[in-house]
């Protein structure tokens, strides 16, 4: 683009016209609703959901005072880190495999897409069905195969339940990561590898010195969006345990859902979501400052 030409007013305004439709769309349908959340977070809200006046930080104070909040926050952080990190690692390894030429690759890739093409509520329902101790499909299968003789309790503790929920989260997130990574892999010029082979570099040396650095940028944006989506994910935990027992498997979103719609505390629920937003904002800002700046320059 030629930047030496003097900018006229029209030229200066032009970029804004190009982004205008997108800004309008997002402002009306997302930013205004976000405004409502903030209003509620600082308002006194009746159980039926009517806003009755300014409440200052009372909602936040109540939330932070609650004995459950710390536990729920810890769960959310464990959930987000486990799902994002493991799905990224596994998705990346799967992408490395699928990047090889082999018979049936097209079918294998199509299969990887499956978990993405199914609504989360249904996915979670199926998993709940699979791990059930009494009529679960996994026990039935293992019994039929003769691997176990009586039903195994796959979820003896709340932690085990949470583990399964995390596994389910990873399962549904892998396709997204896999395809993002796969695209990055395919863009790598094969001459890099040829040169490295001549230099006598082994497979793992090539992986760490060539592949990873080149794929990294393609994964960063995807990872940030992924963190946001996983942090706010609702259907998996809700379908499998609803946060039971005693909030041991609650994340912020299931917790605030119960506050809002089971307990009639919509002001506090809004406060929880604002706290979640601030956490994400801090994480994203750190990312913005480091990765994005580097990329822009």
């Amino acid at each position, binding site marked *: 683009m030629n930047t030496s030409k003097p900018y006229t007013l029209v030229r200066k305004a032009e970029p804004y016209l190009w982004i205008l439709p997108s800004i309008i769309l997002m402002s009306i349908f997302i930013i205004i609703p976000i405004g409502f959340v903030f209003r509620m977070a600082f308002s006194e809200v009746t*159980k039926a*959901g009517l806003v009755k006046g300014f409440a200052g930080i009372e909602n936040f104070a109540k939330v932070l005072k609650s004995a459950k909040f710390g536990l729920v926050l810890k769960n959310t952080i464990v959930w987000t880190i486990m799902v994002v990190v493991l799905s990224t690692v596994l998705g990346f390894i799967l992408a490395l495999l699928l990047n090889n030429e082999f018979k049936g690759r097209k079918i294998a890739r199509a299969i990887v897409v499956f978990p993405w093409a199914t609504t989360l509520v249904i996915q979670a329902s199926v998993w709940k069905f699979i791990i059930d101790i009494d*009529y679960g499909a996994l026990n039935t299968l293992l019994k039929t195969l003769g691997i176990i003789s009586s039903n195994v309790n796959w979820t003896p503790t709340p932690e085990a339940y949470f583990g399964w929920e995390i596994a389910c989260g990873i399962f549904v997130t892998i396709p997204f990561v896999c395809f993002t990574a796969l695209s990055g892999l395919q863009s790598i010029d094969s001459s890099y590898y040829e040169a490295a082979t001549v230099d006598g570099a082994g497979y793992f040396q090539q992986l760490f010195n060539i592949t990873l650095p080149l794929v990294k940028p393609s994964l960063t944006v995807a990872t940030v969006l992924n963190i946001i989506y996983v942090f706010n994910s609702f259907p998996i935990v809700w379908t499998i345990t609803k946060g039971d*027992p*005693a909030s041991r498997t609650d994340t912020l979103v299931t917790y605030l859902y119960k506050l809002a*719609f089971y*307990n009639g505390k919509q002001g506090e629920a809004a406060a929880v979501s604002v706290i979640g937003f601030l956490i994400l904002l801090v994480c994203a800002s750190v990312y913005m400052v480091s990765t994005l700046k580097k990329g822009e320059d």
Partner: protein
Amino acid sequence: MKKLIALLLALVMVIGLVACGNNEAPAADAPEAEAPKADAPAADAPAASDEKVTVTMIAAQYGNETADWWVGFEEKFEAANNGIDLVVDVVSWNDIYTVVNTRIANGEAPDLLNIDVFADYQADGLLLPAEDWVSEETYAKFFPSFLEQSIVDDVVWAVPDLASARALYYNADILEAAGVEVPTTWEELKTVCEAIKAYDAEIYPWGVDMTTDEGQACFAYYAWNNGGGFVDEEGNWTLNSAENVEAVNYIVGLVKDGLTNTDPTTETRYDLQEMFASGKVAMMIGPNQISKYCEANGGINYGIASLPTNGDKAGASVGVMDRIMCFDNGYTDAEMAAVTAVVDAFYDDEPYAEWVLMEDFLPATSSGNELCAQANPGMAAWIDVIGSAKFYPAAKAEWADVKLGVIDVLQQVLLGEDAQTMLDDLQADIAG
């Protein structure tokens, strides 16, 4: 490649256009869908020639046939009442609170709502007293004890649409094989459970549901049959009474002794019902629907009995009641009359009995009772049970907190916390 893209883009555009077109279509084909919104501004503007009065309603989806039944009701009602346009939106129980709260928060409350709770709406002054919108003739049909459950400040704010009561369901074959009788006390219950476990370790002797779904019922089953409960005679919260502590310890004890299903905090009443019908659970407390359910699914040999009590303490069944309420949407006389017409038509003996039978609940009106008892002899016994049932203190403003509170207590105690401490904390939280 290019062709493919072009084709796709074209397809997407076409679909987009169809979508815009289609959005208009339902308005034309099905005026009832768009009418309420269209009517709102029209009310201020000069009225069109023959304007219809619209009544909107949100109804809870009790079963697979609920939605169909309401469609039929709408058609019949509109045929009989030319000037009224009835719009019923049937919403599943999973989602009804989300849907209703979203609409209320936006000032778009339905005219009539069929749901379980009412106190929160009443507290915000959103409801009209039942006298305003229920005709005298219909009002006279309800059992007074049911109407009492919806009183706040001496005014009845909602009318019952149906009721359900809980009883002990047992698998007669399993009990016989294990050589035991139906338990009537807590002590017997434990002995029977142990005998069943000794007979076949694969069977869960006792079904327990402590989930967020309906854990408060579990609390009530044991608290009420131990002389405890949520409130005292004057209506003060008594959550940490000695009876309640004993009740919580008793039921958690059964779970810890391995006499129940493995996962009471995630296995809901529906899971238990499936397992009872397939002979995996020997006994459970449940509503009358289980009978029909068992008969439709394999037909085990089941029996029904009263809930076991602690020693010789007075027993009580747990009654559950849902309601119909009317929101104060600033009605004209014509609109109010239309609402009354809908309510009258719904509680008209024949359609009402048909509805209650279809949903397999218990009727809330005396005339409905007679018709239902005629059609289904099994119901007569249940109608007696509901007569002795206690109801949740749902008219109290703190009820939602108490409900989730006792569920949390059960789950915490199961995880090893102390029942007394937990209930003390809850009591302090609610009443303190």
